[in-house]
């Protein structure tokens, strides 16, 4: 009979726990593909609205392409945020995470990583298509993919804080946008600039590095904040 004085001897490490959290969120998302496709569809629709609203002239569209792309990506990733913690909060999963004895920061990081894999990465892969339809040259594709991929990492992290802060609320949509969008502003600025330079065939490394710096800062700080917010929401 095992000793009950201490925790289980075969306790899982943080990494194992985080890997399971990630795997679980990915499995769940794959069983519910509809939810997965929605932000992407939104992104495509918004970017197709602009030629209709501005002009079908590719030369004119090219001027605004980077901005359109980034605003659409920002809104699409915002759209997916509401689902990030909500179901887990309702069914008590977050409570179990908070009581697991594992650092909640690590588990929050895993959840955010899953969110990025399910929204940020697909957005980065879709972005070149949207950019080409807005008149960007094919040479711009690597720059656009890189900037959207790195930028959405920062967006997912900032968004996870917003989603965790609005957990206890019945209607959180508008407030979530009000909290998240101002904080996302630097990502928008650097990301749009990197894409714009890529579209014009100029070197885009400088803004990309700034984006990467934001992502690194987010990786170190955002899970701490969202873990704190989740704990508070359980009080």
């Amino acid at each position: 009979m095992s000793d009950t004085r201490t925790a289980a001897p075969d306790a899982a490490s943080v990494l194992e726990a985080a890997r399971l959290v990630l795997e679980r969120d990915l499995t769940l998302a794959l069983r519910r593909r509809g939810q997965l496709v929605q932000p992407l569809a939104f992104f495509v629709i918004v970017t197709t609205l602009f030629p209709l609203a501005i002009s079908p002239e590719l030369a004119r569209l090219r001027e605004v392409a980077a901005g359109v792309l980034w605003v659409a990506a920002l809104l699409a990733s915002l759209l997916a945020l509401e689902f990030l913690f909500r179901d887990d909060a309702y069914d008590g999963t977050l409570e179990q995470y908070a009581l697991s004895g594992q650092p909640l920061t690590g588990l929050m990081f895993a959840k955010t990583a899953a969110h990025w894999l399910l929204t940020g990465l697909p957005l980065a892969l879709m972005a070149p298509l949207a950019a080409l339809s807005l008149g960007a040259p094919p040479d711009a594709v690597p720059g656009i993919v890189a900037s959207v991929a790195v930028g959405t990492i920062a967006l997912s992290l900032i968004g996870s804080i917003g989603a965790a802060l609005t957990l206890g609320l019945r209607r959180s949509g508008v407030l979530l946008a009000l909290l998240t969008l101002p904080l996302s502003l630097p990502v928008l600025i650097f990301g749009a600039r990197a894409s714009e330079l890529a579209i014009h065939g100029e070197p885009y490394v400088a803004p990309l590095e700034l984006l990467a710096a934001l992502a690194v800062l987010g990786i170190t700080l955002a899970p701490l904040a969202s873990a704190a917010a989740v704990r508070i929401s359980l009080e």
Partner: protein
Amino acid sequence: MSWTWFHRLASPPHIYRLAQRLTPWFAWPAGALILAALYGGLVLAPPDYQQGDGFRIIYMHAPSAWMSLMVYTTMAVAAAVALIWRMKVAHAVAASCAPIGASFTIAALVTGSLWGEPMWGTWWEWDPRLTSELILLFLYLGYMGLRGAIEDPQRADRTSAVLAVVGIVNVPIIHYSVTWWNSLHQAPSVMRLGKPTLSTPMLVPLLMMMLGFTLFFVAVLLVRLRGEILVRERSASWIREVLST
């Protein structure tokens, strides 16, 4: 333990009475400084050689902008203290800050726009400082919105405290990115909305006004703080005593 004096100092009844006693010590000097600075700024200071009398808007704009940032910083520091040491009084301070800061942010935006029209010929210019100020207003609105949306008062305190701390980490990043963005797109003909080079008779009223506003903030904060402490307090005995006066 050495913390006991600290806890006694931070105990709600003590802070309540202290706030009550200190308020006039900040309010009256604030009033005197603001009046003196008004006289200095509107009458004594000579007109600017470039902007003429239009530069006098600075005596309202710059102190308001100073307030918007200083109050946000105060709020974030109080929020961090409240989160770390679970101090109700610090939550009360943070809660008192937000409406004051938001109102002065609006004043800074309106005066900035009023200043911009004669200088740039447009009511709104995407000047980096005005843009940052606008984002700061959004941060305040988000904070107050979040606080208002959560029914449980304790949870509202703690959740909005996390947001305030996240916000203060972001303020310098936002300001840097906006300045960077602006430097890319700046048309050279546009004159920056900046402090004109100020001579001493121009500068002294400005500093007095900023100090006056700061003291005014403390006075208003102390009044609001008392209300916020009462809302958070459960122990009836000293509340009864306080209310009878």
